[in-house]
């Protein structure tokens, strides 16, 4: 949940170089050159923000990240030992690549792959939450991508019917939420509304 507010020491090598965990060697090379240029001792962009010691520390980490990620064996080893951090970064990163088309940003996972607990009906709020958490995405991230208030997303997940917005907005929110998880929006909307409608009539 610390989400983006990570100290240098807490960042994965991919985050250090600002590349996605599935970056090619070419992309890593380019990112390394950019990072090196940015944190160059004479760089205009850093001297007034970071102390000299901080810059040196970052330079060292950049070199280390580059050394490991450019070596296939070392990278594999690193990926295995940092599996969790890297998985969650996949999500954060994918949202930040500015020009990436939406289709590419959507996850390839489908609902059945995740064997979410559907005993309470398919896409109930709880099931959406389970899927989201299995993907390692926090609500803030979804909120940022969909521009839906995190509180509203939480109400949707918890099915706080009295707080849910009017139907027309709820549908829009569900659609955006479903898309951000890579789920079928139509299916999510239908099943969610049926499920919630049974609990209490939606406005």
């Amino acid at each position: 949940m610390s989400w983006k507010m990570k100290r240098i020491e807490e960042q994965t090598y991919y985050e250090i170089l600002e590349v996605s965990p599935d970056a090619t060697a070419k992309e890593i090379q380019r990112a390394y050159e950019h990072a090196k240029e940015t944190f160059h001792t004479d760089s205009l962009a850093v001297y007034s923000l970071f102390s000299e010691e901080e810059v040196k520390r970052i330079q060292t980490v950049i070199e280390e990240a580059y050394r490991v990620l450019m070596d296939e064996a070392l990278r594999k080893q690193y990926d295995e030992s940092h599996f969790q951090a890297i998985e969650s970064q996949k999500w954060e990163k994918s949202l930040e690549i500015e020009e990436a088309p939406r289709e590419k940003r959507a996850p390839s996972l489908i609902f059945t792959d995740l064997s979410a607990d559907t005993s309470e009906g398919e896409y109930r709020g709880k099931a959406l939450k389970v899927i989201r958490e299995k993907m390692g995405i926090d609500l803030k991230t979804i909120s940022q991508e969909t521009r839906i208030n995190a509180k509203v997303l939480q109400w949707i997940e918890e099915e706080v019917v009295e707080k849910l917005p009017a139907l027309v907005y709820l549908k829009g929110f569900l659609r955006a939420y479903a898309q951000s998880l890579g789920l079928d929006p139509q299916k999510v909307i239908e099943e969610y509304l049926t499920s919630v409608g049974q609990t209490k009539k939606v406005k």
Partner: protein
Amino acid sequence: MGSTQGEDRKAIWTIGGGKGGSGKSFITTNIGICLSKLGVRVILIDADLGGANLHTFLGISPPPLSLSDFIKKRVPTLNDVLIPTSVPNLQLLSGAQDLLNAADAKNVQKQRLLRSIQKLEAEYILVDLGAGNSLSVLDFFLMSDGGILVVTPEPTSIENAYRFLKSAFYRRLRQLPISLDARNLVDEAMDSKNERGIQNPHDLIGAVRNVSEDDAMRVASEVGRFHPNLVLNQVRTKKDIEIGFSIRTACKKYFGIHLHYLGYIVYDQDVGNSIRKRRPLLLENPQSKAAQCVSDIASKLANSQPKTFRLE
């Protein structure tokens, strides 16, 4: 806050950046002209406290009515001080010529002005800010979630921009509904020589966490919502352009924020010529390189999502 009903189509962009002479008014004027060509209503607001001259960039004499008249309640609404320009769909709200110096602007007046700006009817509202880090300038900048920093690729300009960003960043955190103890920590963080050794936002969140986990979460998530933009002005070389990306990376590492590099504007003699003629570049020489750069930036703004509005 999410997307608010009814105001979905309005976007407010505030243009600041710390240093005078970086090109804020030039950029505000010309982006405004680009956006007005989309056939939608655009309002330019000159919020340069004490140094208002957006009218000059538009080739208009100092208008008889300005923000001063609204602040002194000589007119009931902001609409009463809106003046037309020679550009269709583009209106100007001229800056205060006398009053509203940073020190004079009372908080009540400022809040009234901010609220009135947000109620103005227009598709795009561009607010040109003055130089410096006064609280008034910061509050205007923070009116939009997507304030635009205008920076030139020079050490002094970048330094000031960081100082401005730091001030805006902490000012924003200060406005959060957090405990008094946490707020005091934010205040301490603003003083770089603070006793606790809080040197950056990471340290601050760590310190706040010791006070309250909830407050720390609030601060961290607010950081994630802060999306300022960067325009690099007067670039002369490819290396200059790359400084923009470096600034973005530095902000990410230091603040944990995503500074969106909106674009750059090349150094172009035509800019100076147009200003001297008191004719906006987009009208005087739309084919010039700098005008093309401005158009690119404007189209990015037009295609971006509407900004949410922050009102206390």
